[in-house]
């Protein structure tokens, strides 16, 4: 196995506070969709924040393409190729769609190239093109999430981490978000996703990670998790998940 990102038993928390993560690990393989599941407060968002440099890692390592990312700032980790879309509030509400996309390419120095890529994204996402000059904050939840995901593509990252992209969206719209993720993954962007609806998340993923109380309980192929009776019982709400 040639892993792209390797998180080994990390311990991390907020400020001087208690360790929220303790014994969290995961393996990310290139080109696949990975889904982290677990109950509320398990530390799923915290794990993503630790990977992207928003939290100090107290123990353990985050290794990306063979390079240790511990202690690097979020902007440095972004430049390495890991892009994080936080749970809700990922956008600049009073900037237009186009300005949001421009911010997505903030680390690019070539402004002409940036404009070219923005046009490319607008070409591919007609709902964004129609609203290019609308303030992001005035769009629907699905449109905002589409913008947040599309915006990551501007810098052509290796890994995109999405924290609950389906939050607050209608089922039909949620499917659209998963379709966008599949498209991203087909283009060679590796996706790491947190999904509240474990069943739905795993069905749309290749790899699953079960996190609880800040530690990884299990990780493996998504089908394997889906068919594990014990995990079904605990995290998928029995046979029929909500």
């Amino acid at each position, binding site marked *: 196995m040639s892993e792209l990102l390797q998180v080994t038993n990390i311990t991390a928390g907020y*400020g001087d506070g208690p360790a929220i993560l303790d014994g969290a690990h995961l393996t990310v393989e290139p080109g696949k969709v990975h889904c982290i599941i677990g109950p509320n407060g398990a530390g799923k968002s915290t794990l993503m924040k630790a990977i992207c440099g*928003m939290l100090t890692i107290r123990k353990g390592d985050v290794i990306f393409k063979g390079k240790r990312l511990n202690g690097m700032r979020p902007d440095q980790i*972004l430049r390495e190729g890991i*892009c994080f*879309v936080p749970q809700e509030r990922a956008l*600049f509400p009073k900037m237009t769609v186009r300005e949001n996309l*421009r911010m997505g390419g*903030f680390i690019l120095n070539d402004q002409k190239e940036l404009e070219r890529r923005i046009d490319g994204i607008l070409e591919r996402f007609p709902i964004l093109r129609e609203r290019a000059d609308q303030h992001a904050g005035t769009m629907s939840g699905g449109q905002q999430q589409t913008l947040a995901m599309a915006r990551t593509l501007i810098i052509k990252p290796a890994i995109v981490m999405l924290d609950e992209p389906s939050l607050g969206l209608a089922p039909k719209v949620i499917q659209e978000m998963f379709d966008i993720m599949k498209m991203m993954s087909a283009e060679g962007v590796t996706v790491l996703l947190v999904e509240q609806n474990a069943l739905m998340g795993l069905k749309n993923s290749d790899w699953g990670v079960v996190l609880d109380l800040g530690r990884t309980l299990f990780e493996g192929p998504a089908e394997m998790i889906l068919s594990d009776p014990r995990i079904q019982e605990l995290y998928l709400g029995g046979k029929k998940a909500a």
Partner: protein
Amino acid sequence: MAEILQILILGLALGGVIALMGSGLSLVFGVMRIVNLAHPSLIIAGAYITYWAFKLLGVDPIVMLPVASVIMAAIGVLLYRLMLERQTKSAKYSEMTVLLTFALAMVVEGALGGLFTNTQRIVSPDYATDAFFIGDLFIPKGQLYAGIVSLTIIVGLTLFLKYSRLGYAIRATTQNREAAELLGVNVNFISVLAFAIGIGLAGAAGSLVSFVFSFFPAKHGEWIAMLMSVVVLGGMGSILGTVVAALFLSVIAAFVGAWIGATWSTLTFFVALFLILLVRPQGLFGEKPEMA
């Protein structure tokens, strides 16, 4: 009719200066969520720089403006490093910064008072006492120039925020600090920069204020309330809102001053602040009062 036009013009010219005085406060609040209670005392510091340059070297206040801004911006960087940077991780950030900037205001007032006494000062270049007459209209040159220079600086600031890469980063940090950081913005650098620009604007405002209003170290107490009302009505953090609110309130104050009595004029701002907070705390252009 001529009287109304006359009052309107005076109100707008002063409003321009007040807009500049408030814009730095608004910018600093927007980016760092700091209500900089020391802002007006730093404007007064800028006014003293201009005053002494005029008095000792005969430098025109408008010529001195860029110099005063740069000096004050540098002081802004120092203040940020010494005082505010270490607060960023504090759980009591809002309380600490309010108290610290209040303490700073007192220190600046005390220091200026100790150095230059509490005598009223005003810089008087020729144009400060001169006026244009258009028919029956009387337009004091000093106020007119100050208003025009203020609005020019604000237009420049707005263009910078709207179109430059750093301007994008400042706006992004204002709207969503975490998202800005995640997209590669060094938000600490942007905070220092915004604070330096904010205090630089205080310096610029000080140069203009120096020949428009008489000033002394303790004057800032009156100004903070005036600037608060402008910034709150504008929607904390919105520069455009600050400008609109400053022009609006200043015109009203001009009418109140002319028709009811000069002593009631400043009260306009204080009453406005009180009413806005009760009725529409998000101001004209601000977000709903939940702040992130």
